């Protein structure tokens, strides 16, 4: 609870700014008006704040904020939720990328600060990334083959 109070001002400030940036991205990039974006983004912000609050109030180590947020979001939009239809409708008017574009903007600042460390990763990082994609595809395909034959 103490931690929640300590972080409250940061949370409100950051969510407010992220909210504004996403509304604008959703308008400029995907043509949704302010009134179309507003309900969906309010729902998303509500879920996110609730998730953070729960992660502070209920101290289970494995349940991080992102997991709480994810869980609440899935439940509220799943067939068992009485408000699923409206949640899906309004959140559907918030394009995924209008949330992602601002994140990558801020990440650019952090990458610039740590640029030396990124250069050190450099070519090795590209090589490993290729193996990550290849490995995921290979193992997933092989497992797919296995289960297709099994069932």
């Amino acid at each position: 609870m103490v931690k929640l109070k300590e972080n409250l001002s940061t949370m409100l400030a950051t969510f407010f700014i992220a909210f504004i940036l996403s509304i604008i991205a959703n308008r400029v990039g995907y043509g949704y008006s302010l009134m179309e974006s507003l309900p969906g983004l309010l729902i998303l912000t509500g879920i996110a704040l609730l998730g953070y609050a729960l992660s502070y109030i209920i101290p289970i180590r494995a349940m991080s904020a992102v997991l709480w947020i994810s869980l609440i979001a899935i439940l509220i939009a799943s067939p068992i939720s009485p408000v699923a239809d409206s949640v899906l409708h309004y959140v559907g008017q918030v394009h995924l990328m209008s949330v992602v574009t601002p994140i990558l903007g801020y990440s650019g600042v952090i990458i610039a600060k740590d640029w030396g460390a990124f250069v050190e990763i450099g070519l090795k990082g590209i090589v490993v990334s290729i193996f990550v994609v290849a490995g995921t595809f290979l193992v997933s395909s092989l497992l797919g083959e296995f289960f297709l034959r099994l069932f």
Partner: protein
Amino acid sequence: MGKEIVKNYKMHLIMLFAVIVAELIGAVTIPLGDITIVLSPLIWSMLIGFGIYKIKPLKLLDEKAPKHANAMMGAALALLMAKLGVTSGGALEEIRQAGLALVLQNFGNIGTIFLALPIAILLGLGRESIGMTHALSREANVGLIQDEYSADSKEFRGVMTTYIVGTVFGPVLMSVLASLIISMGIISPLAASMGVGAGSASMMTAGLASLIATYPHLEETMTAYAGLSNLISSIIALPLGIFIGLPITELLYGKLDQVRNKKKVKGEV
């Protein structure tokens, strides 16, 4: 810290500018022979944020900016998690109908750890390799690593590297991989369609295109399998990462790092 973040209004105005310019540019497609590279708005906004911080003479961003940017990413990633979660919740019924094979197959998404982590260690990478190899880094994984280790950590640098490389080159890579595996004949087209679904939507589209080129008569079934696999993999990305992927990666990293250090002492490497 809330007031301080708001006071850094210059950074947020720069981000507003970055977002608007990025979305106005939109997705740019670069054709390279048969394959294409797509640069989406997220790449532009990242480059603008990067460039403005790097051009020091302008003094538009001070040394506090990265700390505040870290806090901002926490909030924006939380919104993203909520968005991904709502999309997942709406698709639960589809997944229930998809069948067990498709659901179980997606657990293979973490199989990459056993291939990519040893390679990262061999190349001499440190804890960056944990962020890089715990899963195919998609948005949910960036959120997970930021939440678990903060944006200041080596793990975060790792996940950002694979996320960016994957976003830019992933589709090309997936289309080449899909063609390769099909020509080797060990995997059936349907299993390969499940495999191309493991990545982002654009990786899936690119991989699927290669498969359809080889098996045009299977287009509909393959598209359905790839789409469902893509949906399931994005839903289980987070729990899979938290409960299985990251713990395995941490454990394996610890072991491999020990071996590496011993060899260093003996002077074998």
